[in-house]
């Protein structure tokens, strides 16, 4: 047993060794993890506010000649630290399958149609209030070979940067009410009390009348900087 569940941050994170998710088997570290030294490298992080990210990069429905098929959604939320403070001017990256549950990736052999009008990648820089907003289509569920008749619930991958190296986070955002959630070993790798933090909320205020449904998802990084560390 790797001693990785002793501090605040990792209690909320899934264990590396998660037998239900088969790919972890040869990829989880077996040695005890070392306490991360508190040093300047860990307490700083890259700054991306000057990256050439345009408004078009946040609208996944306008990256090709036509519009992608599927249920158009507006996905917005805030990038926050563990005290609820906004993280402004940082990079948020997303990627996802199309509405049929197929990724625009050569490795995805699921026999669902590709959509010539959908790549499924977006990015933006958080605003002064930590806010971000993407326009996309709701991704489909898709099968994977983890176990018999295994299906991933619909999800959007998120990659975010906080203010410090320790706050780097890659996660997945799910949709409320999805019956596949309780069957998914990746979702269920997270403790029951923390799973809800990965599920977006349907939000009427975010919908655009006659045009798109709205979902809200706040991403909270960190907790780690406040944790006492041993050098």
């Amino acid at each position, binding site marked *: 047993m790797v001693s990785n569940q002793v501090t605040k941050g990792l209690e909320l994170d*899934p264990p590396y060794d998660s037998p239900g998710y088969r790919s972890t088997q040869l*990829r989880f570290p077996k040695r005890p993890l070392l306490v991360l030294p508190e040093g300047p*490298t860990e307490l700083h992080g890259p700054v991306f506010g000057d990256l050439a990210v345009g408004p078009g990069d946040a609208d996944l429905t306008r990256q090709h000649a036509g519009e992608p098929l599927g249920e158009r959604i507006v996905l917005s939320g805030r990038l926050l630290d563990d005290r*609820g403070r906004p993280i402004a001017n940082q990079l948020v990256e997303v990627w996802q399958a199309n509405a049929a549950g197929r990724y625009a990736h050569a490795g995805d052999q699921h026999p669902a149609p590709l959509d010539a009008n959908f790549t499924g990648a977006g990015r933006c820089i958080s605003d002064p209030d930590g806010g971000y907003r993407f326009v996309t289509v709701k991704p489909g569920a898709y099968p994977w070979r983890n176990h018999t008749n295994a299906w991933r619930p619909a999800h959007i991958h998120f990659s975010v940067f906080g203010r410090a190296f320790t706050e780097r986070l890659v996660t997945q955002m799910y949709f409320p009410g999805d019956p596949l959630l309780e069957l998914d070993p990746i979702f269920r790798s997270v403790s029951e009390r*923390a799973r809800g933090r990965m599920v977006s909320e349907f939000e009427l205020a975010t919908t655009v009348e006659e045009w798109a449904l709205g979902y809200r998802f706040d991403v909270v990084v960190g907790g780690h900087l406040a944790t006492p560390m041993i050098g």
Partner: protein
Amino acid sequence: MGEADPTPSQTVGPFFDIGLRWLHTPELVGPCVPGAIRIAGQVFDGVGDPIPDAVIEIFQADPDGRFPPDTETGWRGFGRCLSDPDGGFRFVTVKPGSVAAGSAPHVDVSVFARGLLQRLVTRCYFGDEERANAADRVLRTLGDGVAATMVAPAEDGTYRFDIHVQGEKETAFFAW
């Protein structure tokens, strides 16, 4: 659960290329810049097979030991490399300066992959910094064998930093 409970980590999955390739930035400096060094290696799984679907990210100080936003224009200290079919990665960078007393030059390293529900975090130290490494407050608390997994030997300007996520040669990883 309060509003500020951190969002749990999930795996980057197998199809991250779609979303992360655009910022594939293995060259923090041009290869011909004076002082340019290379950090190269492969990522291996528990049976020694290369991991072809990994993302390696580094973060480090500049040669003066400074970090963004206090660095010269353009120095982000960040690099991202998507591993090749042999699990290989290669960064071109400069050796970071000293960031604190008792701290040998080091680069922080994150590894993301399918099968990793959280990133793995380690440090890359430099094999030709024997004296600084011996005094480093992290390395000196570890057994020689464990410390050695984080020290990249130098060969002709390239520092070889293989990452074994599991197994006999398992790299030392950090948590907090």
